[in-house]
């Protein structure tokens, strides 16, 4: 058998790994659960700046992540993660067993301390509980997201050329007064999930993306084009319906134009704002997507990513309550063709469509097996990690504002005095996601239903519930965008998710740069 790390490694070892997990599980004392993820990726990457290739890489990575839940009096978790190399594959039995032992030792130690502290802490120890998982249908499946042009077959030189060409055409747009950086990436990912419950899932997906950042004088703009597809993503099979070169050129032209535009004047009061689908992609991500992650709701992320304005406690939350205008519906769906597409999550749970806000009323969270048990919900398959050696977290899949029925041009035409917000830039959000300030790429003044002058360096700011409650028009122009860097966890995991929506109209204040 070859010990090389390739996508094909999983074919060579998956039965062996599955049997090892079952064998180890039966031999571990006080162990109630064990799972293992083995992931491999093969990818190519290139970076160019100002029309010159700076870096390129052809990479193969393999890694492994193990979870154990064990304990005599009260169960607790332990984890182990590691990259793997050919020597680890050569000694796979020993490598996997050592990893399982390490995770088990941590779980057992954790259990022992939990039990001890529960007694010592008295009343404060009453909430310390056994770590348990909600029951699920155990699945055995092989699933691959399709592609047209195999990322592993694209020559590295082609990736380099794509980056250089895009960077070169961008350079021509602004002459000598700017700078650009272009990244191009294509790869194939595969992950095996096996568990002591008998789960055996082999899942793979392609990923191709391009990133452009442009600086013209002090104007900095960036954007990302990508999809869970093969090389075809860069040639029009993407949310923008553009080739990567067209996308890069458009961004450069936009940046050049914006560099000469006036800065948005701040408004003292709320004004009418019409927000385009690209802006709304980041909006739904920040003020709904994140606070519907159940770990945030249950305070597990308080020290890092914050809490959730949808949930203060079991007796103090928004479930069943109005949180938005009845024109607003928000849901997550991993079956949509976007960055958040997958079939099974990192606990082997089949991903389900989850409605978070249904015509203005809050309905539910993205969860894990552990949080589903606490919230008394069914697991909906929302646990993911960027790589197998990292512990999964509750993450958005494709989380979106649902489309409405209005023509977006009519939504604009109806505005006597307001602003049209085009494209998102950078967010800043309150700790429980209760308040936001999201800068836009450009903002137009609307007068008597027509777009007038446009501005740069402006942001939309509002309390989240206020904004959602004041939505009075939702368009039929739904779009799903790739969001490449949703950061969460320690160590930080920057996961790709899908977010989107249609044109919407609401009210908010605008803040211009000082």
């Amino acid at each position, binding site marked *: 058998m070859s010990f090389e790390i390739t996508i094909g490694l999983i074919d060579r070892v998956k039965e062996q790994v599955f049997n090892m997990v079952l064998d180890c599980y039966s031999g571990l004392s006080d162990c109630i659960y064990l799972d293992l993820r083995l992931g491999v990726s093969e990818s190519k990457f290139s970076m160019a700046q100002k029309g010159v290739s700076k870096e390129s890489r052809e990479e193969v990575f393999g890694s492994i992540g193990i979870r154990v839940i064990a304990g005599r009096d009260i169960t607790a978790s332990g984890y182990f993660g590691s990259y793997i190399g*050919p*020597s680890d594959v050569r000694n796979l039995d020993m490598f996997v067993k050592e990893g399982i032992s390490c995770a088990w030792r941590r779980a057992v130690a954790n259990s022992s301390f939990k039990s001890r*502290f529960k007694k010592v802490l008295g009343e404060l120890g009453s909430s310390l509980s056994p770590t348990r998982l909600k029951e699920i249908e155990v699945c055995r499946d092989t699933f691959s997201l399709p592609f047209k042009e195999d990322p592993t077959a694209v020559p590295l030189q082609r990736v380099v050329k794509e980056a250089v060409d895009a960077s070169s055409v961008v350079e021509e747009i602004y002459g000598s007064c700017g700078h650009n950086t272009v990244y191009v990436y294509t790869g194939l990912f595969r992950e095996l999930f096996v568990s002591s419950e008998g789960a055996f899932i082999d899942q793979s997906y392609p990923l191709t993306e391009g990133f452009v950042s442009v600086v013209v004088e002090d104007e900095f703009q960036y954007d990302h084009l990508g999809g869970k597809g093969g090389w075809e993503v860069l040639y029009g099979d993407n949310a923008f319906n553009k080739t990567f070169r067209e996308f890069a050129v458009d961004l450069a032209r936009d940046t050049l134009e914006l560099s000469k535009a006036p800065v948005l004047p701040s408004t003292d009061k709320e004004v009418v704002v019409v927000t385009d689908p690209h802006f709304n992609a980041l909006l739904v991500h920040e003020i709904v997507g994140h606070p519907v992650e159940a770990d945030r709701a249950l*305070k597990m992320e308080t020290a890092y990513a*914050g809490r959730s304005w949808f949930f203060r406690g079991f007796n103090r939350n928004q479930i069943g309550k109005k949180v938005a205008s009845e024109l607003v519906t928000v849901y997550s769906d991993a079956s949509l063709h976007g960055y958040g597409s997958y079939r099974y999550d990192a606990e082997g749970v089949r991903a389900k469509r989850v409605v978070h806000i249904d015509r203005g009323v809050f309905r539910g969270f993205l969860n894990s097996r552990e949080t589903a048990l606490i919230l008394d919900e069914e697991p909906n398959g929302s646990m993911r990690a960027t790589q197998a*050696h990292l512990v999964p977290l509750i993450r958005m899949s494709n989380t979106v504002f649902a489309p409405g029925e209005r023509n977006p041009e009519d939504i604009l035409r109806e505005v006597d005095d307001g602003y049209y917000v085009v494209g998102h*830039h950078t967010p800043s959000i309150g700790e429980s996601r209760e308040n936001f300030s999201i800068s836009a790429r450009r903002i137009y003044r609307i007068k008597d239903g027509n777009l007038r002058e446009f501005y740069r360096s402006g942001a939309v700011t509002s309390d989240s519930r206020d904004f959602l409650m004041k939505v009075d028009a939702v368009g039929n122009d739904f779009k799903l965008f790739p969001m490449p860097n949703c950061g969460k966890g*320690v160590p930080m995991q920057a996961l790709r998710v899908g977010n989107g929506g249609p044109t919407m109209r609401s009210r908010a204040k605008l803040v211009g740069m000082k």
Partner: protein
Amino acid sequence: MKVEVLRKCVGDGLRFIRFQQGVREAEVFASWNENITIRINYTSEIPCSGVHEPKSVVSYGVGVLAVFDTPQGIKVGFGSDTGDLTIEGVKRALERAKKSSVYDPDFKTLPSPSYGSPVLSSYHDGTVMEIGDEEVVYLGWRALKGALAVFRKKGFMRNLIVGGDVTILKEKVAVANTNGIDEFDESSSMFASITAVIEDMNAKGTGWASATYLNRFRPEEAGNMAAKNAISSAGGRRIGSGVYNVILGRQAVSMLFSEMIVDALSLDHIDSGNSPFVGKLGQKVASDIVCVYDDGARPFEVGSKRITCEGIPTGRTDLISGGRLVGFLSNNYYAKKYENNVVKFIPRNGFRFGDEGRDFKRIPSIHATNLVIEGTREVSSQKLISGIGNGVYIGRLWYLYPVYGLAKAHFTGTVIGDSYIVRDGQITEPLKPNTVRINDNFMSLLKRIVAISRKKSPTLTWGSREVIVAPEIAVKCIRLENVAEFIEEL
């Protein structure tokens, strides 16, 4: 994994590469890292685990940066190999480097050993390198116990949240190149960062602890500090929107520098034009009292390293001196690119930091190590507070980003805890967490600094590698907005 194994890998690897045809220069870098994180999650009203995730990630391998003579000219390439420190791993990495090589006219040469000798030696803790699983897990419980002990003693038993983590980072590296660099490094660092909340009192406090030696590491002190700060902040009230004199506490100062100013002071951002410091070398960019420097060789600091990931000894790089911009952080690539007869940048900040440690899969980029902020004149914390008259003490900032791009220096963020209202030079009452948004411009803010505290402490922000050795600073006229009043109805 012994560091001698890594040294042998790079030594053997370089000897092999020297004999390869067409290789003009080469650098071999090998590393072994273990990142152990114990995540804490305690909630008094919701079933919880206490120590939620005791976990670790191990990574090791080799990276080769090579300069090739080709018929088309000089090309530079990088390749790596995971999990194999034998000559076979080096060969595969070299092959990948060759395949991925590109012509980059900005690449000059690899570094040479002309920057002095390393200052630090044998500064890692051998005990930490061998720490067992049970002891590791117990560190997390110690941090939690520290917080709960304070709550219990003070009679706070309901609506409590304690979260955060204890992290141990073990890093071993070896690096050698054809210009004569042959170095190694071994470091251990421990951090605890804890947040404590009394939810029904809208009280939130932060605590942290760091050390390079296990016998000096006190995670329970991080827990104590967080709980005490939470209790101090109970019963906070809102302020109206307006312009205020502000004291930025150490965590807030760390956020400001980690999220924005460090990048803006890095030569790669100057190169791209995406920094407000472009064209300002030698000019006044801050108040006269402000001095900022990076020093990777400070003893006992968790950000310290013996060498950079390019094999260059760490040391001090002055950035702002008496308010004047005097330098930038740099790695070898940008230092060589910008070297001329007038100015020379010493590349003391070329690191391969990734989430797992010093990552053999990366080429060196620019990172701060221990960024020190100090004043030409410094005062006590008490004097700092009394000096602002009426204003706000901001302990912790959140989601601070340059929302219109770094070059414009405008930022926004929210105040999430450890904050107080100041009247007549005295702290009078807590500021309610999550009720204030700050909008400002950091270039302007640096010029409005009026006082800097004598006492500093090393602080880390979520997701950052650098340590900010931060004082408290007093700043005039910061715009603060009252936000999210609806949250009280929920």
